[in-house]
């Protein structure tokens, strides 16, 4: 089996819980006509989710290697930057400033070059400025998208 049984069981139970909520809401919410199609979908949804959970609990789930601890450790900093960028910084600092900071943070976090390398910082800041310049040209000038300005830009 690829991945541990518990690793497969947890997401399978989460999906089953979501399916249960969807099924419950589909059959209890009104007006019934509006929930006709969701009811049909939810019957298959909960049936398949239960089957999937049973396979995970009994160790029959084989597909997918799960998320090893090392991979999770590597992913967490980048996801944290993405979440802060989208949910906090984008509207408070402004789209372009927060985008630039997120770009710089990710390239710094995942750059194999040592953080003490001056050349590395110059390269990363240079690439960030060029990339954000291209993004500004595309979205602000070409597509005329009005992005949240926040404190800066």
């Amino acid at each position, binding site marked *: 089996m690829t991945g541990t049984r518990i690793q497969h069981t947890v997401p399978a139970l989460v999906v089953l819980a979501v399916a249960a909520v969807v099924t419950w809401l589909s059959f209890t919410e009104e007006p019934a*006509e509006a929930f006709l199609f969701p009811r049909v979908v939810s019957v298959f949804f909960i049936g398949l989710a239960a089957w999937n959970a049973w396979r995970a609990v009994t160790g029959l789930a084989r597909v997918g290697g799960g998320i090893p601890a090392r991979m999770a450790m590597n992913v967490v900093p980048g996801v944290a930057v993405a979440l802060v960028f*989208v949910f906090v910084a984008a509207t408070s600092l402004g789209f372009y400033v927060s985008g630039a900071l997120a770009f710089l943070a990710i390239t710094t976090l995942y750059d194999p070059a040592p953080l003490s390398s001056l050349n590395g910082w110059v390269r990363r800041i240079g690439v960030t400025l060029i990339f954000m310049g291209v993004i500004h040209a595309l979205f602000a000038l070409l597509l005329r998208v009005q992005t949240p300005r926040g404190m800066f830009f």
Partner: protein
Amino acid sequence: MRMEFLGYFGGVFEPVAFLLLLGGTVGGLILGATPGLSPTMAVALLIPFTFQLSPAHGLILLGAAYTSTVAGGAVSAILLRIPGAPANIATALDGHEMARNGEGTRALHLSFLASGIGGVIGVLLLIFLTPVLAEWALAFGPSHLFWMAILGVTLIGSLDSKSFVKGLLSGCIGLWLSTIGYDDMQGAPRFIFADALTGGINIIAALIGLFAIPQVMEMFAKGRNAAAIEQVAITKHRLSDSFREIGRSGRALGVGTVVGSVIGLIPGVGGQIAGLVAYDQTRKLSPHKAKFGTGHPEGVIAAESANNAMVGPSLVPLLTLSIPGSPTAAVLLGGLLIHGIFPGGDLFERHPEVIWTFINSMLLGQILMVVFGIWIAASAARIARAPVPIMAAAVLVLAVFGSYSVQQSMGDVYVMLILGIGMFALEKFGFSAAPLVLGLILGPIAEANFIQGSMIATATDGPWIYFFGGLLNLVLVALVIGSIAYSFASNRAMNAAVDGMQGDAR
């Protein structure tokens, strides 16, 4: 009807259209050559840029990107042994061995020439088969369209996933997500758990999240110490020699093109397996079987002609029946819908200029792809070695800006990111994005026809006879059940084989 497409060639040569075709082709080649950027993600990220364009121009850009990213994926497969897309897995088998033997340029020439020839034949099939199938699809009523939408989800759910339970479950999740928001008939709120979901889940934001964010997270997963990439020297090779070699490789080219075209026509199967099946068949038919895997040009030619021959035919079921032939075609369906173009039997009557200009641009795009592919082959190694952290950061920022630009709504950005992070986790446990996306895209089509069919059924013979009566309904239901049963049986066979191998190992 058969030669109608010739009357719309002028649209492709309009300055804006031609520039978009050129830009889409060159940009697609570069994106395809960059490891980690799949054709599906590239097309999804491009959709927001088409809002300002006319439907024909938007589709030209998306079609050019689709064609050239598949071909461009061969660059990293050959030079780095990292397939730019799943469709290029078979290309890496012999292509990288050729590159290691100092024949990288020759392998790239052959791959682009084979892609171009396979691609042109694939688009010709699209031109001649689509109107025929479209006329046939005109006879479809709401019950048939409902079953077609369900068939699309079950086909991709069962054939595109390693686990058919998880594939179908992904399809169900997509169908459920499509019902979030206000109901069209009653105006009743459904599953609106947060303000961001009030308007429902925007398809484009969802596509970007489901295809781009998991790839960004895959890049994060490599950490600071991305595996060292083997460097291969690029030596010059005469283009005329490559042309002569392609001329002598009729068997590999023929097998690749036929296999790719047939697989492209099967809804949901996609290009992933076209290259591998063509490679395997060419090896079986070749008198030089032992040379395959050691840097044999026929391996590259078969794989690349197949994966580009698949592109055109994968749009036949999409344009006529709303069932995409590949995950990238599913994203293209999203692009069609946001421009108000609904696939179906009367598509060629409602939007002939848009659809024929789009298809003609794909034909011309194949030729441009060969020209520019060979031109960039010299600097391909540099493109293919783009640093992973920069690619991850660039795709994330582009995904945020792209999803915001759809409706200028932060809600879409939140949905995009949450769906993307959730999809990454689900993929790690064997779920697949393609059926989920299909469910999300085909959900509204299935629901509208289900409701319309239910109304007709109530006024006539009742739902059982309406939805299950008649030959066409029965055939479609049989196909839905057959696709699930086939996938179930093949899953069981695969599990039994794995158990057998594990038993032998013990």
